[in-house]
C-alpha cells in the first residue's frame, strides 16, 4: 500500500469524522450480476433478469472489470458473445469518492450506473444513480438537522 489515497482507493476501512460519510464504495451494490467475456448473451440476460437487474458487469476470474452491459446491450441477440456486445473499458470510479459528488455527476450526465472498482480494477460494486441521489439527499438532510 503506497499511501493514504491508495488505502482509500482500495476501499479499506478508515477512522475519523469523515469515515462515517457515505461514499461511492459504501452505497454501491455489491450483489450486481457479473459475467465473463466468453459467455453468450442469452443465458446471461436470463440470469440478470431473474435477479431483477438491468445491468451486468463483465469481469475476469480476479473480478477485474472488462466491460459493462446496460439495457441497450442486454437487448441484443442472445446468440452473440458477451465480448462482442459489451461496452468495453467503462469509466470506473474509486470507492472513496464522496457520494454527493458522484450523484451530482450522474444526474448531470444522465448516467444510470457506474462501476466502482479498486485502483487495480477489481469490482467493488455497481453504483446506481437512484441510490447515489438518495444517499446524497439523506446526507444533506442530516447535515441540515445537525445543530
Amino acid at each position, binding site marked *: 500500500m503506497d499511501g493514504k*489515497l491508495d488505502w*482509500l482507493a482500495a476501499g479499506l476501512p478508515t477512522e*475519523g*469524522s*469523515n469515515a462515517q460519510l457515505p461514499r461511492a464504495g459504501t452505497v454501491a451494490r455489491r450483489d450486481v450480476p457479473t459475467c465473463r467475456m466468453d459467455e453468450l448473451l442469452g443465458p446471461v440476460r436470463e440470469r440478470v433478469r431473474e435477479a431483477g437487474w438491468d445491468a451486468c458487469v463483465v469481469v475476469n476470474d480476479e473480478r477485474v472489470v472488462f466491460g459493462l452491459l446496460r439495457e441497450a446491450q442486454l437487448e441484443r441477440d442472445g446468440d452473440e458473445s458477451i465480448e462482442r456486445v459489451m*461496452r468495453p473499458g*467503462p*469509466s470506473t*470510479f*474509486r470507492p*472513496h*469518492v*464522496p457520494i*454527493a*459528488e*458522484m450523484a451530482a*455527476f450522474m444526474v*448531470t*450526465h*444522465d*448516467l444510470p450506473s457506474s462501476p466502482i472498482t479498486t485502483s487495480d480494477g477489481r469490482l467493488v460494486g455497481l453504483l446506481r444513480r437512484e441510490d447515489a441521489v438518495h444517499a446524497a439527499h439523506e446526507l444533506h438532510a442530516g447535515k441540515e438537522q445537525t445543530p
Partner: protein
Amino acid sequence: MRTNDTPCVMLVCVRCGVGIERCAFCERDACPEPICAKSLRVELRESMAERHEQGG
C-alpha cells in the same frame, strides 16, 4: 489529403478547455458537459480534500 468526408467533432472539456473525443464521465461523444479524464480525477479527488480535524 482528407481520407474521410465526415467532419471530426471535437468536444471541449468544460473544466480545462482541452479537446477530447468523448466525455470521460459518461463516455458519450454528445455530452452537454464534457469533462476530460484528468479534470474528472482532479474534481473527484479535490472533493475529498477536507481538512482532517487532527490535521492528518
